[in-house]
């Protein structure tokens, strides 16, 4: 369902924090043929609500439908199609201990991160930055033979 007109968009969905609410949202995307590129979800502190951030692609009409269809779900309070936002993504990368640790530390710190764990055989670096920069970090980290990369998905807040 992707084509060249499709734009990357980030949507925040504020929902009632009840069982199966996430299933309702993902089923809606699956059933209507929309894409989910990344998804994060966590309760909003001191409320009975949760905040879901969805990174998706689509043209203007598709985006309008996504927003409206999300709104139609009974436990959905609010749908925000982000325009002016601060967005961050986290990534954890595991490297063999034999790699050059100071290089890795320097690289990670260039992307707002650092080494967060050193084990017998492995070292773990963490980076939290804009999604585009996270992508660059992962590309740059390639040469240090990462053995595992875990991305966290986008979180966003309107400026």
């Amino acid at each position, binding site marked *: 369902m992707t084509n060249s007109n499709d734009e990357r968009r980030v949507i925040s969905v504020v929902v009632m924090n009840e069982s*199966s609410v996430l*299933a309702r949202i993902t089923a809606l995307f699956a059933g209507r043929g929309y894409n989910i590129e990344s998804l994060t979800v966590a309760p909003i502190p001191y409320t009975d609500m949760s905040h879901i951030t969805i990174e998706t692609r689509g043209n203007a009409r598709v985006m309008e*439908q996504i927003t409206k*269809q999300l709104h139609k779900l*009974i*436990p959905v*309070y609010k749908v925000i199609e982000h325009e002016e936002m601060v967005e961050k993504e986290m990534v954890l990368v595991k490297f063999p201990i034999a790699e050059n640790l100071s290089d890795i530390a320097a690289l990670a710190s260039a992307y707002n991160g650092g080494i967060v764990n050193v084990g017998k055989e492995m070292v773990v670096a963490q980076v939290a930055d804009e999604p585009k920069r996270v992508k660059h970090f992962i590309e740059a980290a390639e040469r240090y033979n990462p053995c595992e990369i875990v991305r966290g998905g986008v979180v966003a807040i309107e400026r």
Partner: protein
Amino acid sequence: MQMSGAQMVCEAIIAEGVKTVFGYPGGAIMHVYDEIYKQNGFEHILTRHEQAAVHAADGYARATGEVGVAMVTSGPGFTNAVTGLATAYMDSIPMVVISGQVPLSLIGTDGFQEIDAVGISRPCTKHNFLVRSLEELPRILKEAFYLARSGRPGPILVDIPKDITVEIGEFKYPDSVHIPSYKPTYKGNNRQIEKAVEAIKKAKKPLLYIGGGVVLSNAYKLVRELAEKTQIPAVETLMARGVMGAKNPLLLGMLGMHGNYASNMAMSETDLVISLGARFDDRVTGKLSEFAKYADIIHVDIDPANIAKLVDVDYPIVGDVAQVVQKMLPMLDDVNTDRYQAWREILKRYDELHPQSYVDSDEVIKPQWAIERLGELVGEQAIITSDVGQHQMWAAQHYPFDRPRQWINSGGLGTMGFGLPAAIGAKRAHPEKTVINITGDGSILMNVQELVTAAEYKIPVINVILNNHFLGMVRQWQTFFYDKRYSETDLSYQPNWKQLVEACGGIGYDVTTKEEFDAALQDAIEQDKVCFMNVAVNRFENVLPMVPAGGALFNMMLPPKIEKEGEK
């Protein structure tokens, strides 16, 4: 008051004013059935299949406008109900379906008759609930009824684990609901309404495009008033038949794939579409890029997701059709009805050029004749249900529907087997009315077991089977688009219809002539028993006009022209 979960279910149904529940018992829902046995606040009709229970509740809801209620057990009971839920969902019918579920402790263990009911029904309900504790049961039941009938109506599933139905707790049925995330818009934005009214006044060729939402919103009187006041011609969708009334001179007919010539041409040439409670379904629009190509579009719909889903809209109005039209009416006091005179005349000429017609025969009953004859004999006072296929389209084209809720059919999902159980529901709601299910020899067999229900409860539904020994609509497509390769559509092998219906406790009539048709119908009405009128009709009759799927509305295959006297 202290009571069991099962009792709470019954008390809630009574509190909601429901008089009839359709259902089928089973293991997980037995405690509720035990309470049904003890109470006398509502009647329970035992259908012979869960799908039919849901269709019957649906027919009841469509005939009355009230919430229909069906009850089924877990596992296969629920899965059988899914087609019923989907049928109601596609046509926005207010309904509450209560299903049993295995006890909480067994959920997720692949227990006997366990299935993830909320998972399966998610895409075909407006909302659904799995009850997780007795405390939340009264609130959920209240919310279920509220959600079913408010906003854009739809079916709600309440799945109740068996142990919750046994448990005893305090019951207080809430007076109101509080769902902060659910606030349907009824009123319609005043500024938008004003703009739309200005557009109406400026238009030269406006057209009212009336959908099922007008029926659901009980807005038909207001819509008729709007048409009357402005003298703007109107077309109806399949779901809106009856809104304008067949005799209304402003009604052009039904539009879409099997719409009449004038309606489809009107939509192709209009400069302003006034869409009231319609959703631009593909069976209505044909090729989207050619649909109402020269028109601005006013779209009134209670569901914002319907607006600009398929076509770009110039005047979007989110709101209840009744409330929006109510606001429009006084603003149109100074409308100049002469302005649309030329347009009305063009459309009149289109209708004269290609009226909704067929070539009748003296040798064989034409299905269209049968429908028109029904219209002449029972007309306004009957409720007509239908199954899905050629007979449904002929009924929609040729029956003189005079009021909304007189025509009950599965429009969105197109569910064969809907007609008989829906007729049972409608007849139970309106025992004083003649209820006729117009069906085909294909569709009727899909819920034929309900003859037993109708006979047992003395629900005298008349089933008019337009029998062409074919799965007619598919056969028609095979004739036109598949080089007459009649793959699996020949239904020459048939049951003995008379014996079949009599075995279930009804009456059968074999009809091959027009005289027999009249006689059978008259007898059927007098006998007041469920019956089959097995009407042998022309085998290869096609539903016309027809817009081939994906084609532009103005490219219709038309019926052969009937030459009037003195015309060549």
